[in-house]
């Protein structure tokens, strides 16, 4: 399981970097989204994977030790909300950029007026 997760995270990071290096500005935003997801998964895995014991569902005394750690899940929830907000802002920003400059080319970002 751990191996599969590691593979998935690596794939997501790879895709994110690939997208960030494209010239299309919408792909840049897509890359940021991927980057956020990869890191959320990393947070999830680094907190330790537990299967079959969801936290707080079965409160049997003596089994608390085996329970999945709820904290990384709470952290991911926060991180997801934050990256949602930033992504929404980035999309508006990029759209505004598009409507002002009529291009989606990142080379337009350089300032050789």
């Amino acid at each position, binding site marked *: 399981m751990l191996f599969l997760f590691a593979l998935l995270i690596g794939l997501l990071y790879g895709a994110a970097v690939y997208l960030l290096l494209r010239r299309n500005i919408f792909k840049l935003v897509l890359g*940021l989204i991927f980057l956020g997801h990869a890191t959320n998964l990393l947070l999830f895995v680094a*907190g330790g994977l537990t299967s079959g014991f969801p936290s707080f569902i079965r409160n049997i005394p003596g089994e608390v030790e085996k329970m999945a750690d709820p904290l990384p899940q709470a*952290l991911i929830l926060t991180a997801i909300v934050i990256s949602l907000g930033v992504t929404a802002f*980035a999309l508006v920003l990029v759209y505004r*950029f598009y409507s002002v400059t009529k291009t989606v080319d990142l080379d337009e*970002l350089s300032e050789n007026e």
Partner: protein
Amino acid sequence: MLVLPIILPLFFMVVLIFTRRWLAFQQHFSLLATVILTLVSAFLLMDIQENGIATLQVGSWIAPYGITLVVDLLSAIMLVTVSFIAIVIMIYSPGFIDKGRQSAGYYPLSFGLLMGVNGAFITGDIFNLYVWYEVMLTSSFVLIALGGSAEQLRGSIKYVTINFIASIFFVAGIGILYGLTGTLNMADLAYKLRAAGHIPYLDGALMLFFIAFSVKAGLFPFFFWLPASYHTPPIPITALFAGTLTKVGIYTMFRFYSLFIVDNTMFWKAFILVIAGLTMTIGVLMAASQYDIRKILSFHIISQVGYMVMGLGLFTAGSIAGAIYFMVHNMLSKTNTFLAGGLVYQRSGSYDLKVLGGLYKSNPMLALLFFVPAMSLAGIPPLPGFFGKFFLIKGGFEAGDYLITGVAILVGLFTLFSMVKIWNEAYWKKETGTLPKGKVSRRAIASTSLLALAVVLLGIFAGPVSDITLEAARQVVLPDLYINAVLGR
């Protein structure tokens, strides 16, 4: 008491959001609000000087389980400086920023930014720190794009992208650190790291943090976003960013280095000193080659940040105290030079040194207002920049690191060169005669003078201030004080 620097800006922000139509009210209320914030922070500083590090366990969840708020002297000094800068900006802004931007949410957003900055200074929880960083950054994202001119949009896209990526590094570091230690409370983490000795992969997590904070602080090799975006918004926004944002990154580095670097100290020290040397040298060389006032000053931020990191790398009480003093001086002087640059723009409608000229003859007041902070940055006594550099260089010699100290002295020379360049081109040389003669707002002059006065006072009272910074440095160098205060041992 400890929550006030976070709660008050939130309250002010909400009030300002609902009163967006009444511009005059917004201007006066913001000024009043920043004055209140400064008073509260100053009171906190005095309280901590007297009673030592203050902590608050939010919701009465004791230390490692809940979120702890901690204010030590370093945090308190930063709080006071930031709120004072906010006062100056709030006096300056109505005279400079156009009405459209002002009523589009400039005031509420500024308080959002202040809330994030204050939160980052106060929190004692590493994930909470990330959240405050995001509060601060999201406000700054909107502030930098506010108005939406094509130039601003270009700058904002770079700014948003690079800061988002840095945040991702930060979160990844938090995840790995939590996996290694099982705690997020900074004091508890520090305690566990000290008890455990060597933890494998720890340096990986710390390096992720280092990358995240060096992006935010503008260290070599991650500084290119700063001069590419800082010059695009109106100058009060740039000045606010220059005075606060990068320094939050530096503050966090101080905190993390003091608490978490227990293993491999030799490596980290050498590494940070190398980065510091490269940052100050490259920053100042790039500043010297620019012709836009805002760009020269932006590259200067980078070079000066190098000095602070140098103080951190040496990590003796003397050098840290010097770095803290330098940080306060830099926040004031840097904001002041940007604001003085704004005055030039109001007068002549340009930031370009090639077309500017003759301002000393036509407006000696403007020249003086630039001269004070610029000479302070260059390190001319009796201005605070001299004492800041003096403490740092003295710290360097005491620690026996002659190479970095030599670099620091040399960079000081180049700093003087690039300040003199602005002075010569904009103020000293003959008027080019083609520029419009704009009217300089009185509020802008008043606030810039206030800040220049603060700079001079910081230099005159270098003795008493350096006593406080030395005490703050002692708390940084001996993290046990911090750890015990939080964990209540």
